[in-house]
């Protein structure tokens, strides 16, 4: 699972959960998979993500260079910034055998197995 995917998922399907975001990421094991750097694509993607959540996710997995704490104003023209964003969003892979994400409101855990987050909930939870 790439951190872009983590940046988008919520636990809002659980009954009474208001926001369900961000999911707390608990995964110690990551893999770095080099992928093509596409500045045009990144400039379109960055407005859709929550930068603070990404920074926290990067810090939580550790083992990699921290991101600038705030979104650069000129990010679409800032090659260095875009490269860092690319690395964080699309090259860090949560590849753990077992890891999890946690609903910030209920503490409900969503396991990540072989890189696949399991967001399924039971009938009595929705």
């Amino acid at each position: 699972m790439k951190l872009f995917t983590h940046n988008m998922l919520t636990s809002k399907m659980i009954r009474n959960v208001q926001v369900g975001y961000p999911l707390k990421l608990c995964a110690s094991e990551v893999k770095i998979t080099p992928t093509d750097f596409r500045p045009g694509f990144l400039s379109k993607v960055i407005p859709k993500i929550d930068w603070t959540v990404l920074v926290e996710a990067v810090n939580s997995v550790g083992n990699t260079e921290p991101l600038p704490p705030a979104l650069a104003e000129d990010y679409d023209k800032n090659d260095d910034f875009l490269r860092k964003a690319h690395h964080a969003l699309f090259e860090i892979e949560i590849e753990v055998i077992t890891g999890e994400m946690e609903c910030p409101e209920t503490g409900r855990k969503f396991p990540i197995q072989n890189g696949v987050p399991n967001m399924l909930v039971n009938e009595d939870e929705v």
Partner: protein
Amino acid sequence: MKLKELESWLSQCDQFDKPKVVLEQYATSAHVAARMIYSAQENLTDAAVCDLGSGCGILSIGSILAGAAYVCGFEVDEDAIEIAIGNCDEMFDDSENPVNFVNTEIDIRSDALSPALERFSSCFDVIIMNPPFGTKNNAGADYKFLKQAIHLVRPEGHIYSLHKSSTREFFKKKMALPIEKLGVTGNVLAQIRYDLPKCYKFHKEKSVDIAVDFWHFQKQSKP
């Protein structure tokens, strides 16, 4: 990529071991998938792509082959995801861009976007899917998948999807409504003879051909 080349790559994908009736799991053949990817190719390059109900992942893999930047497959059945991951492992080595699969329900009980996916709203450049055909106990599921897809795709983004030809008039009527009702325009790119091998007990014939439309929809900007 050339059509033949796409089809030959995609023909290496494994399909469902035991298709599940309740989920209407019909495999997307390499023949059909290759033609869908080939038609969508120019919009897939450098795009964020969603495969809604990704099954064994053949359309997700095809999207990567066509140069997509990010591909996310949403699928409720973890057995299918396991096959899909196996297919990705066969096709790509570690240094390539694999698909992100998320084991999640596509909630079609309401017209709103599935709550777990809410933040993905208008996020994708392209949705490519082979939704349930909406038969048996799943009446209307095909149309509801389309509605989810419309939420997920950005304005002016593209949806490529398969629907039974018997629903063509229904879809045309929906699209004739004022654009704000459904929010897409669309046309049938091809009619496909979809060969369903006998994979369920209730199938009496050895295999059945059904007529399926390959639709291309485009989301309209808000007026």
